[in-house]
């Protein structure tokens, strides 16, 4: 598979993630969408790492770090979801519009 193909897959994945992030009301679904978007970036990095870059360590480390940060991110986000859930027993993103003035 060529670089271009990988990139297109990445773009598709990103777009799917976007749909997830934009269309869902559930906070967890939003999170999933965003994770897909980040993974699309990872795929791109890996593909470039393979086809373009002479020293392949950078891309890999980049992806590893992304994975690590995603873990941290998810941890925080899920705890926030739990906090909201405690308060509301609901995790509907649209209910959150109550805040905006």
């Amino acid at each position, binding site marked *: 598979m060529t670089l*271009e193909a990988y990139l297109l897959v990445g773009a598709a994945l990103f*777009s*799917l993630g976007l749909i997830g992030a934009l269309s869902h009301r559930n906070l*967890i*679904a939003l999170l999933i969408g965003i994770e*897909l978007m980040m993974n699309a970036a990872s795929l791109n990095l890996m593909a470039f*790492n393979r086809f373009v870059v002479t020293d392949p*360590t950078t891309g890999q480390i980049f992806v590893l770090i992304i*994975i690590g940060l995603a873990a941290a991110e998810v941890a925080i986000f899920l705890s926030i979801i739990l906090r909201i859930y405690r308060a509301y027993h609901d995790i509907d993103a649209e209910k959150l519009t109550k805040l905006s003035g």
Partner: protein
Amino acid sequence: MLEQAVIYTFVALVLIGGGLAAFSRQILYAIIGLGISLLGLAGLFLNLGSPFVAAMQVLIYIGGITVAIVFAMMLSIAMSIRPPNPDARKLGFAIACAVIFFGAVAHLIRGAQFQQIASPASEKAWSVGALGHALLTHYNVVFEALSLVLLLAIIGAILIARKA
């Protein structure tokens, strides 16, 4: 040929999983979709020459993150199992956005000319050892910072989730 088939399978996994994650109205299916997609990605990573990253993807992403999401979902399950009303308008908007974006990016990608290298770097450069070395020399700041972030995330998660 077989190799190609495997790759396409992975690609299919990525896209199908992604589709499931994106379009499913049931959170559980979405999580499963995410898992599938990540699995496919791990396969692609493997194919791109990095077994270590692929392994990490499986371990942390699928093994850690996805499972954490499942737990979170189960903790808040009382509400989330009720299927939310489908909102066609919202979905349509999301799809439109995604399509436009995809169109634009795809167009650009097809038009771009990357200076591709003739052949992949040596095995040594791809090795885990090289990775570890770079992580501890070249990217030591990043590594330290990442650990700090993880520490903070743990503290934060505990604090936030703690019952008042």
